[in-house]
Every structure is written in structure tokens, then in C-alpha cells.
């Protein structure tokens, strides 16, 4: 059944007004699909990922619905969401290095968290140990404090905790940014393994590192300035991107498999628009080499090929002609 997001719109409240961080996002994930979420910094990756599980102020829900396995998820209800968090939707946070209470032994912390969620720690312990084995962590870590673990160990520990209750959707937020290349690869592969073993159904990997996505993602969603630009199977995004932004993004990478850092794309002139009061129409218009008058309207996010969605008038017209 997977994940279904419809017209999701989330703003950030600031003193200067609402920042329109995410608008009209609609997409679906098939069963077992691992999706990468990529784009420049400030494009709206975190708002999309976070709004599915931790929609707290200053984030503000505006519109849209989210379904997981056919069940509607009340993402706007900060309290009511607690039922779904951890069990249905879970998060591996960007700050995994500091995600665990520094003054509790890890096992005790997990125990208290599970008990608070109505799960018996003792019942869970054998499974917890199996999963520690799976990510090659010794069982002793349960008897240690977080500072006694290395960065890679903490990352794996948090992965195990976040996926412990077999959530349908797991969101991994920039998991690899704090790790060295070898550890990154191992961690990414473990996440795929989690899916293979059906600990999780869907996985959304938020990253600015496309090489990781190339290794593990089934599909990639590209965002630009708070709106969806393109979503397609990984191979299509890398080899035959359709959105002018994706093309520039991909071609600006020296070759696939090389990371690009969190910086503005040098290859594309101009900057993304400010989201406090973004221009009407296609938000990439001002930087787009192909822009024409129709781009003053907002382009729809349509399926131009099987599982290949694009928000671009040029592609829309090509598609209409082809039909």
C-alpha cells in the first residue's frame, strides 16, 4: 500500500511572515519503495520529511493529506500523532550523534521509551539483540552511556531504535553527513537490509549526497524552492532527467558517484527565490534557460512516463503532443 501524500502544504512561521517552505506536494510510494529526496539546501527537503512525523511549531500545517497503508495520518495534530510515531512512521534524525539521553544507559533509555509507548521491554529484548547483531553492535552497548560509543556506533544504534517497532515508513534525515565514506556505505546498506527483512516498508532518504541514493534508492524525488520538480526511478533521474533543473543538477555533478556539497550550484546562474513571497508560476523560471510565457503559471506535477513525474510546462506540452 505504501505512502500516499496529497497536496501537502506546510509553512514556517517567522517574524517576517510565513515562509512557504512546502507547497502542493503530491506523490506516492509503492510497497517497499526506497525513495531519495534531493535538492539544493533550502529547497524544502526537511519540511517535507519532517512534516510527515514532527510537524511542530514554527512549522504550520496548511493543507494536504497523508496516508500510510491506506490509513489517514493526522500530521496536523501534534498530540494525536504520538499514536503513529515510532509504530507507523519513524525518524532517524540528522542529529543521531546526540539523539540519546547522555545520562541514561542506552538499554535503560530504550526500556523507558518502550514502556512509555506501551511495549514490554523484556518481550522486545531478544529482537533488539538480534538487530544489534545485524548491525554488528555488541550487546554490551545496552549497558553503556552514549558517550562511550563512536560516531558510527551511535548512528547504527539510533537506526536500530528508530526501526524497532517495524514502522511502515522510516525517514532518514541526512544520516550520512557526519560519517566517513566507508561507514556511510555500510550504514546505507544496512538500511536496505532493514527493508529486505521487512522491518520497514518504505524508506525516505533525505540527503544532499546523490551518490548514496544511486546505491540504495529505487526512486529519487527532486525538489526546488519548496515544490516538487521531478520524481522518477533512480536510473531515469540519473540517465534521462526531464526537468531542466534536474538536468542542470545532474550535469553539474562531475560524474555519478561523486558527492556534491551543500552549496549553491555553480553551474546554474542565479539563486533560488526567497520563499517568504515566492513568485507566481514556475519557481525555477528565473534561472531556467527554457523559460517562456506559460511558465508564469504554476506547472502541474504530472506523470509523463511510467512512474516518471515532472512539473514543467515544456514536458507537459511534449507529453500532450505525444498522446
Amino acid at each position, binding site marked *: 500500500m505504501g505512502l500516499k501524500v496529497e497536496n501537502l502544504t506546510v509553512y514556517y512561521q*517567522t*517574524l517576517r511572515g510565513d515562509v512557504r517552505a512546502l507547497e502542493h506536494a503530491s506523490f506516492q510510494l509503492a510497497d517497499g519503495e526506497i525513495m531519495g529526496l534531493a535538492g539544493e539546501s533550502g529547497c524544502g527537503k526537511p519540511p517535507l520529511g519532517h512534516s510527515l512525523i514532527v510537524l511542530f*511549531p*514554527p512549522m504550520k500545517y496548511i493543507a494536504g493529506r497523508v496516508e500510510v497503508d491506506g490509513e489517514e495520518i493526522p500530521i496536523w495534530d501534534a498530540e494525536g500523532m504520538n499514536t503513529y510515531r515510532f509504530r507507523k512512521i519513524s525518524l532517524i534524525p540528522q542529529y543521531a550523534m546526540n539523539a540519546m539521553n547522555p545520562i541514561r544507559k542506552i538499554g535503560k533509555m530504550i526500556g523507558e521509551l518502550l514502556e512509555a509507548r506501551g511495549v514490554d521491554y523484556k518481550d522486545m529484548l531478544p529482537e533488539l539483540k538480534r538487530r544489534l547483531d545485524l548491525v554488528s553492535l555488541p550487546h554490551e552497548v545496552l549497558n553503556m552511556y552514549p558517550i562511550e560509543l563512536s560516531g558510527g556506533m551511535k548512528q547504527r544504534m539510533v537506526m536500530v531504535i528508530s526501526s524497532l517497532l517495524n514502522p511502515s515508513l522510516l525517514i532518514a534525515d541526512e544520516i550520512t553527513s557526519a560519517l566517513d565514506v566507508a561507514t556511510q556505505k555500510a550504514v546505507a546498506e544496512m538500511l536496505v537490509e532493514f527493508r529486505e527483512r521487512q522491518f520497514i516498508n518504505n524508506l525516505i532518504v533525505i540527503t544532499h549526497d546523490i551518490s548514496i541514493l544511486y546505491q540504495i534508492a529505487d526512486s529519487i524525488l527532486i525538489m526546488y524552492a519548496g515544490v516538487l520538480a521531478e520524481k522518477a526511478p533512480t536510473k531515469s533521474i540519473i540517465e534521462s532527467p526531464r526537468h531542466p533543473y534536474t538536468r542542470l543538477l545532474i550535469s553539474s555533478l562531475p560524474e555519478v558517484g561523486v558527492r556534491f556539497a551543500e552549496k549553491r550550484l555553480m553551474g546554474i546562474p542565479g539563486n533560488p527565490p526567497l520563499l517568504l513571497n515566492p513568485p507566481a508560476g514556475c519557481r525555477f523560471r528565473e534561472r531556467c534557460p527554457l523559460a517562456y510565457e506559460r511558465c508564469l503559471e504554476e506547472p502541474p506535477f504530472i506523470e509523463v512516463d511510467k512512474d516518471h513525474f515532472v512539473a514543467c510546462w515544456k514536458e507537459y506540452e511534449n507529453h500532450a503532443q505525444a498522446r
Partner: protein
Amino acid sequence: MKKRSEVLYFTLRNKKLLIGSGIILIFLILALIGPSFTQYKPLDYASPRGAEPPSAKFWMGTTFFGQDVFSQFVNGLRATFVVGLLGGGLGTLVGMLIGFTAGYRGGIVDEILNAFTNIVLVIPTLAVLLIIAAYLQVRSLMMECLFIGLTAWPWAARAIRAQTFSLRTRDFVDLAKLSGMKPLRIIRDEIAPNMMSYLVLVFILQFGGAILTAATLDFIGLGPTNTISLGLMMQYAVLWGALPFGMWWWFVPPGLAITAIVGALYSMNVGLDEIFNPKLREI
């Protein structure tokens, strides 16, 4: 430019800062011009009838000995501001000197200064002050400022040291080092300006702390020997039966003034903190 106008905007909008500085200003004005509104010297025996409640002649009443409380009060306020300014200022200065040196030099210098700071931090300031003060026959207000400043610096030094540590590794400091700048100039030109807001906060807290310490010293009779102060007023009030005789006009004003001034300083501190650290601003 944009940043400056933003700070100004938040400054004018910040109630805590405005109320705090308003109270300070009122008392400061009172301390400056108050003494010219009374013809009595603080220790003159102005009223032959001894203790009198507030009246048109004696705005705050008189003491057990018939001294004018208003005159004592405004002159005491002066001493309070002097102690806050000089004692707090000296404490900040010494704290800066030790904090910057320890934080910037690091290594063995830091180890020694840090151990020294910790030692002075553990010793109860008042105990040291009282043993010094007790042996001095004549004590002036300036001496009191000096003692307070020289014993109040440790926590300022600790805070500044920690800040310097984090600034020391920043790019602009590296750049200055590479360009052959002298350490003192780096601290003065590169580090201190970046900590300006922090130093202001430290100074405000030292100011308040100095006032409270001075009040304590004065109250146990180790304050300046030749002037009046708010702490001394309270000591006299307690020693000469203001409580059993219900002479509230004698002991309420000095304590109230200290509380208001120090409380206003804390309020300013919180307000300024909100202005300097955008994270703390309420949305």
C-alpha cells in the same frame, strides 16, 4: 546595516530592557540631584525630637537619632552606583584579563589560570573581604570598590575564557594570526568586538553583584568608615531598634532601592540577551 537596524528594532520593542533601564535611570537621577533637595547632611542630627515618621519637612522621616533619612537615602544611592560601576567594572576587567589570556593562550597558562580561578571561586568572597576590611582602620568607598572588584572576577573569567576558546578557532582569528598580528591586538581587534554583547552582559551582572556584596559588607559594619550607604542604613536600623519601634521608613527605602536596582539590572540582562541572541526572541 540591516543587522544594525534589526538590533535597534528589537531594542525598542524589548519591554524587559526598557523597564529595567527606566528604573535604573530614575534611581540614577535621584542619586545625582537628590542631595541638592535637602539641606541636611546625611549624618547631621537634624531633628531634635529623634525619630519622626515621614513629613513635609523630612520626606522619608528621621532616624532614631533624628537624622534625615532622605538625605541618607540619596547619598547612599550615590555610593551604591559608585560601587556598582567601579567594583563591577573592575571585576569585569580582571575577569577579561584572566579569561582572555587563559582562553587565548591555552595550554599550561590556561591550566594555571584555571586552577587559580577555581580556587578563588571556592573561597567565599565575603570571608576574604571581611578579614581584609577588619584590619583596616579607615576604609574609603574606593577601597571597597577595589576589594569587591578583586574578589568578584572568577566567574566572569570562566565565562569569558569559554567564549574565547570557541572564538579562538574561528577563521578570522586564524587569518589574523597568519598575518602576523600580535596576540594582544588579536584579542583587542578580533576577539573582543565579537564578544562585545557578551561582555556587556557580564558587566551588568558584575554591577548587580557588586551592589549586593557591598550591601552585605556595609551591613556587618565593614563598609566605608566615612560615608553613609544603603547597607549601613539597614545596619543602624536593625541595631537601633527600628524593628521593635516600627520605624519602617528607616529600613524599607534602602532595601527597596537595592532590590529595585539589582532587579532592574537582571531584567536588562535578560532583555539584552534576547536582543543579542535571536534564538531567544519570542516569535
